[in-house]
């Protein structure tokens, strides 16, 4: 039980907690947009933390064994993290726009976008 194992456990715990919160958000929130809020943020953050624990694990393996395979492993995991970080918000944005264009009204007190579109139709 050295320092890196404890660090890995802490990172994994944070990541798993946020991932599970993402699932809870998907069941609790009332409409598409609020669900997107919960899932996009929580799962991106959680997946980054679980992957970061894998990075710490492979770096500690590299330090103890000196095998260059673990260095490759680290680089590939970091590339995967950046892929998630770039693609996730873009996909969320695309889904939100598609949902709005297909005519799903958001639950809430104000909807500026629908007002703008209605105004354009009249004029």
């Amino acid at each position, binding site marked *: 039980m050295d320092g890196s194992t404890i660090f890995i456990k802490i990172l994994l715990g944070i990541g798993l907690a946020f991932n599970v919160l993402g699932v809870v958000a998907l069941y609790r929130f009332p409409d598409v947009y609020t669900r997107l809020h919960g899932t996009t943020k929580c799962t991106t953050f959680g997946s980054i933390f679980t992957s970061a624990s894998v990075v710490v694990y492979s770096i500690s393996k590299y330090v103890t064994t000196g095998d260059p395979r673990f260095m*490759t492993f680290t680089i590939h995991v970091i590339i995967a993290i950046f892929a998630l970080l770039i693609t996730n918000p873009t996909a969320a944005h695309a889904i*939100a726009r598609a949902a*709005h264009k297909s005519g799903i009204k958001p639950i809430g007190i*104000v909807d500026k976008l629908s007002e703008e579109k209605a105004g354009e139709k009249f004029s």
Partner: protein
Amino acid sequence: MVIFLASVIMYLLLVWSGGSIPLNEVVIAIALGGIITYACRSWSPGLYRMTALRPDRWFKLLAFIFGPFLWGMTKANFDVAYRVITGKINPGIVRVQTSLKNVYAMTMLANSITLTPGTLTVEVDQESGTYYIHWINIKNVEPSGKDIYGSFEDWAKKVVEE
């Protein structure tokens, strides 16, 4: 040019395994980069400019990612966690006018908005730079940019448009 360099560096990173890189891998990387650049030539002419390669921009981008962006993301997650547990929401779509012109600055700001507290970009008007943002906890109906994303607009300007 940017696409070429990005694809070459990506390939070499995926191939690299601790030691030195053999010459045939470099040749394959350059050939694949050329093919990809040729296939993407009709996208945007801005991708071919060399100004995107200035190193100070990359340092600013890194400073942005590891400074205010990471802090905002952490805050966002605890905020969303609080709302998931208590179920207190007050959602709606608001309009924000920004002064950004560049497409890449807009993309960067939209992605940053999506990952920061309680906001989600729904639609962007490219000509006027108007953002339509879904806000999970509305405080006022006609907000300014500062209320929603803090200093991110200035950062996007600093990184891309200077």
